């Protein structure tokens, strides 16, 4: 693989190009995708950049092919990703389930959009969490700016490699199609998956180490792993669930447990003015940027409002939400959908404080004024 000639300094990038560059900076060297607006610029950028950095790009026949070829590349030891938009994400669910169960690190970008004229939305927030069959956990990060689109791709690959789990970067057509300033850090912290060090005959490919994650071998290295989607034991042997319910239960407890156990470490967020706040606006993605603007304006009017931006959307940052619910009188949750994530906030905070859902399902984000008006109303 040739040397990575990455970007440096201050750049002015399209959101989708920032996503591609962030991935390359994280060490991604395989991209497979299928064209779909408004995610296509990620594939276009990758098709040009991958051969320059010693990686490989392929446009597959559909989204199913894309995600499975990403899984294949990752099994061969290469950091891999795909990118799609809402309707294309549907097709990827099968492969995401495969990657979760076989613990194959990979990153999937979902640029959320409405049908027809690709207006922004956050209507996929539940589909990225609950789309594939069986029990699983997923890590999902939501950028709210072009800078974050770059930064969170690095976080996403690091989480994927650390936990051997697919990570979804969930943005929307507004972030993807906005050009913005991106400061490329001089030093980038990169995490690579653990590899087995023991003799081949001692390696148990699905036995976790202390951190809950098994080391991962790669195709061609002699460890001869059977990767089967069927229920399997620590060695990878297929088991019958009827006669081995304990092994089955343990397998999924561990796959989910490694994420849930570290939920607090995975939870990334930003809070503004929380210390003395009576009202907190909790949101993610582009909505979090607008709500910050509204909170700043509310503060100027003397209202004790706070902004809470959830960078990690899944797993739900429960401890943070519990903490906020004990501090403030009202939590407002603006969303570009029918009010889906609000239910998660309800699950965590119900009975502890007043909760206000602010859905907007019109293919556009809230305006500052809309959020400000609700803050004003709740402050009275």
């Amino acid at each position, binding site marked *: 693989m040739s040397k990575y000639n990455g970007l440096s300094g201050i750049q002015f990038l399209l959101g989708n190009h920032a996503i591609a560059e962030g991935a390359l900076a994280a060490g991604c060297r395989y991209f497979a995708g299928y064209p779909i607006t408004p995610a296509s610029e990620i594939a276009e950028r990758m098709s040009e950049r991958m051969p*320059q950095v010693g990686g490989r790009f392929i446009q597959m026949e559909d989204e199913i092919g894309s995600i499975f070829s990403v899984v294949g590349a990752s099994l061969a030891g290469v950091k891999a990703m795909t990118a799609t938009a809402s309707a294309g994400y549907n097709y990827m669910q099968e492969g995401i389930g495969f990657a979760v169960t076989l613990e194959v690190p990979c990153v999937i970008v979902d640029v959320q959009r409405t049908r027809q004229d690709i207006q922004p939305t956050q209507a996929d927030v539940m589909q990225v969490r609950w789309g594939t069959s069986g029990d699983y956990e997923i890590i999902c990060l939501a950028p709210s700016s072009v800078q974050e689109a770059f930064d969170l791709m690095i976080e996403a690959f690091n989480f994927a490699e650390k936990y051997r789990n697919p990570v979804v970067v969930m943005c929307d057509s507004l972030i993807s199609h906005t050009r913005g300033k991106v400061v490329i850090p001089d030093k980038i912290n990169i995490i690579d998956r653990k590899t087995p060090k023991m003799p081949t005959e001692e390696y148990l490919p699905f036995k976790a180490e202390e951190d809950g994650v098994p080391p991962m071998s790669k195709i061609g290295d002699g460890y001869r792993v059977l*990767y089967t989607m069927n229920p399997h034991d620590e060695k990878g042997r297929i088991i019958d669930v009827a006669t081995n319910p304990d092994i089955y239960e343990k397998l999924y407890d561990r796959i989910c447990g490694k994420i849930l156990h570290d939920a607090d470490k995975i939870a990334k967020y930003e809070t503004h003015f929380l210390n003395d706040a009576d009202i907190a606006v909790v949101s993610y993605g582009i909505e979090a940027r607008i709500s910050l603007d509204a909170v700043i304006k509310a503060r100027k009017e003397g209202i004790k409002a706070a902004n809470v931006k959830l960078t990690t959307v899944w797993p739900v940052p429960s401890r943070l939400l519990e903490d906020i619910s004990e501090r403030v009188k009202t939590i407002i949750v603006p969303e570009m959908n029918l009010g889906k994530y609000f239910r998660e906030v309800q699950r965590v905070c119900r009975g502890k404080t007043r909760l206000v859902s602010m859905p907007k399902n019109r293919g556009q984000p809230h305006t500052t004024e809309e959020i400000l008006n609700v803050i004003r109303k709740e402050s009275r």
Partner: protein
Amino acid sequence: MKVHPNIKFLRRDALPHGLCPGCGCGQILNYFLYAIDELKLDIDKMALVTGVGCSSRIPVYIDAYVIHGVHGRTFPIATGIKLANPEVNVVIFTGDGDCAAIGGNHFIQAARRNLDVTTILVNNRIYGMTGGQVAPTTPSDAITSTTPLGNVECPFDLCKLAEAAGATYVSRWTTAHPRSCINAIKKGIQHKGFSFIEIVSQCPTYFGRYALGFREPEQFINWLRENSVPKEKANKMSPEELRTKIVVGEFVEKRKPTLIEQYMEMEKRVRRHVNA
């Protein structure tokens, strides 16, 4: 005790196998092991990719890198492995449902790209694992679990499909042709490009009982041998005469740049451009 010479390739802890008595999958496993033994291949440089169905269980018994368990996605997984590490020798085991129904588009696209992998298609012309339902390769009029009054559809000729899509090595045999199967697998693995080997196999449990009315696997294997027609002879027969026959032989063997070769050429151009 006398042991099979190729048991060294098997995962002993995966045995005994779960295939039906008389199933052709065991024979095909045996043919494949003979092929890699005779070629003296390094199993550690191989990846065996497989899907879902009876035939997809074949490599599960082999001690190697094996990817198993999603229906029809063998070709995309193989594409990712091969592009990420072209040194890996990828063999795909797939069935008629896995390859031609749910994985049909992936199959023709991989052939079109001349992806340098070997595909062993086990064609038992029925869905065995799910209880004997009609497949895209089930002959017209055949009785299956979902065509109790006879199949009203026409079957695929998967060798013709592979050829039309761009496969550069194509052959068809049956489980009743052990040496030809072994030789075809050897040739397919050595061939640079997309190799497609169809092995028509017996499913005594479903196709044998439902479609052919056989009670014994032996009858089925004899039937496969008696109904196979070498392609040279088939060229002189009418479509009507060939309707119930299985045309066997080598159909395509040609050299074309593979996907990886094309990709590496492009990378050279990029490097020249970057260095200039």
